[in-house]
């Protein structure tokens, strides 16, 4: 009896960690949103930030039920003064975009880790982000002069195609090597090849197209607008929800492919869905913000440590939130530390993300030896 009681207690403490971690992450995210909104070349007091946002939301809701009567009021809040314009036109979309894309990138990384059963898989290290960039680059340089349009939907498709292409390529290689470090090396090499192709094209492309490409590939959340936020919302949130609904087969798959099949997981279609969702999420990020490094590896790992569990149905929502927090703060650092000069978001995420990868590799190595 005592054993049973103890047993219940242990699983309960484990379950209690999840709401605790989720709550802390939500609070951190809110904090990040507020700090991001009020810091910058023009600092807006937090109280004003709250007031403006709450007014806007209030009218937004009233507008929803009042069939557009309050649209003027909303516009008035936005256009009231410089501060409100900075908040609504620049900072708010930027911080929302950073959190959505950060979350998406982390979930994408987590799914790749499940797929390759390798804790250092991620869209950036496997060269998938660079692949997406290459295809987008080729599209901008060779297709845009023909079609003449430069819509975000077009970029998204090119990016998705690139992500999927490189994922399949890496998948092909991964069947030849079982070793986790080798997979990483292959991913980095593929990434270099893609970058080389991109650079090659830039060298011979005409100037006007290059400007388009460089702007895009800077890898930054600067210049975020509400359209991008909407696009990100439409892709990242459903993508993450699909991933969440895959929690059960993911858990079985973590055991092994053969065991998952023996428990009734339709392994083939499961793998396809996993890759598609992961590619879609990382493609969305790459299309909007350019390649962002190491978030996909670092965040899932941090989440596992925080939760002390690998139950996918706890991990996936946490990974998304944690990724949002991570990117919001990285973006804050990117735009404020050397202000007025802005750093690339990838620079900051690398500084915090790469050490996690090094740590994971060393830890793995020493475990092997034992």
């Amino acid at each position, binding site marked *: 009896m005592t054993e049973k009681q103890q047993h219940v207690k242990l699983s309960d403490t484990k379950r209690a960690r999840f709401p605790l971690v989720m709550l802390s992450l939500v609070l951190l995210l809110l904090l990040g949103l507020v700090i991001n909104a009020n810091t910058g070349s023009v600092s807006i007091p937090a109280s004003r930030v709250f007031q403006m946002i709450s007014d806007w939301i209030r009218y937004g809701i009233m507008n929803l039920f009042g069939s557009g009567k309050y649209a003027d009021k909303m516009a008035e809040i936005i256009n009231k003064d410089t501060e409100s314009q900075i908040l609504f036109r620049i900072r708010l979309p930027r911080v929302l975009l950073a959190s959505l894309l950060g979350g998406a990138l982390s979930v994408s990384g987590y799914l790749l880790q499940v797929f390759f059963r390798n804790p250092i898989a991620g869209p950036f290290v496997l060269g998938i982000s660079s692949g997406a960039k290459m295809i987008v680059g080729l599209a901008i340089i060779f297709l845009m002069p023909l079609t003449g349009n430069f819509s975000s939907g077009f970029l998204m498709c090119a990016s998705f195609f690139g992500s999927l292409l490189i994922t399949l390529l890496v998948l092909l290689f991964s069947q030849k090597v079982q070793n986790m470090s080798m997979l990483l090396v292959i991913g980095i090499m593929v990434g270099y090849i893609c970058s080389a192709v991109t650079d090659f094209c830039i060298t011979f492309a005409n100037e006007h197209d290059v400007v388009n490409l460089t702007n895009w590939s800077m890898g930054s959340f600067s210049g975020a607008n509400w359209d991008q936020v909407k696009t990100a919302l439409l892709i990242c949130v459903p993508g993450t929800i699909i991933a969440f609904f895959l929690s059960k087969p993911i858990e079985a798959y973590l055991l092994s492919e*053969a065991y998952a099949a023996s428990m*009734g997981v339709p392994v083939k279609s499961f793998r396809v869905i996993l890759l598609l969702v992961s590619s879609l999420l990382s493609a969305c990020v790459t299309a909007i913000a350019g390649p962002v490094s190491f978030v996909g590896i670092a965040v899932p790992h941090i989440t596992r440590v925080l939760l002390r569990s690998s139950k996918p149905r706890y991990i996936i929502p946490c990974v998304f939130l944690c990724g949002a927090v991570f990117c919001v703060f990285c973006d804050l650092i990117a735009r404020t530390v050397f202000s007025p000069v802005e750093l690339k978001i990838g620079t900051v995420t690398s500084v915090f993300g790469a050490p996690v990868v090094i740590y994971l590799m060393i830890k793995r190595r020493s475990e092997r030896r034992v």
Partner: protein
Amino acid sequence: MPLTFSTQDLTVGYNKRILIQNINIQLEPGTILTLIGPNGAGKSTVLKTITRQLQALSGTVFIGNLSSAIFSNREFARKASVLLTEHVDPERMTCEEVVAMGRYPYTNMFGTLSDHDKEVIRESLELVHASVLSDRDFSTLSDGQRQRIMLARAICQEPEILILDEPTAYLDIRFKIETLEILQKMSREKGIIVIMSLHEIDLAMKVSDKLLCLDGEKVISYGSPEDIFSNHVIEDLYQFENGTYNNLFGSVEMPKITGEPLVFVIAGNGCGTPIFRALQRKGIPFAAGILFENDVDCQTAVSLSSHVVINKAFETISEDKIRAAEQYIRNCKYVLDSGTVIGPLNEANIELISFAQENGLPVFKRVEELSL
């Protein structure tokens, strides 16, 4: 309700290359079938085909009277569960969570466990004597403990048919027996059909109701352990040199040392066996006698030497056997007295000792005393 299991003209293989043809087995509920055969005999291939990991090249697997191919993944998972040889290494999962995975085909799309599910998980852990491990991190366990948790996982799936690929691999001898005991209990009490592959022939002969012997090309034999025993199938299957494998005990001895015997061992009652083995290790050819054919020493002696003087069981030692033994002693350099019990029937062995001494042969009691 317990189901039967059968195969009809089942042909298995990889990539359309046929490995084993025409497997026909028929199992009643509560039967244990063991696949035996040398490495690469196709045991795993057959098991993988039964579990639908590989497609059958032709023929049908029946569960009850339905072809296994018509079941959906989920239905099939409720009928059959597996224990594989592959090493699993899930990160940060407790043993209980690993076992709980067995409820997969029964839970809703989020894998929520009902009270009944939790009860089955607890029972499964108890059945493999691993309740104390339930909160331990799976990755901290020893290989033997892992194997037991994976067995609990398979049991937790509440299958009609339990399919195990080398369930005793990685286990020490006590856990081997314990594992097989659990399987016997499952089959007897719940009517579960157990299909497994084993490398330990001796255990296979003892635990199985049916044996399927494979050699990588065909089914060598299929039947009860008694049939397999009386037809000396094992020796052929593993191509044992005569004597190496003991059909009665299912045990093996190292190959005998050939050549003219140097030592004559007076054995009997089990006292001779350790001496035979010691001589084999030193590479010394020996003769042994005079043994009754029902003596345990007789079993090992014929495995380890071609020069054994054997007398009929329950009869006094005959004159010609004594002559034969004396002949051996004359040609040997030493005599080893194993210290066997001497009774009215084997008094001749005492005479052999005096015969050796008369002929000037040193008589020792222990192998170490020999100066070769």
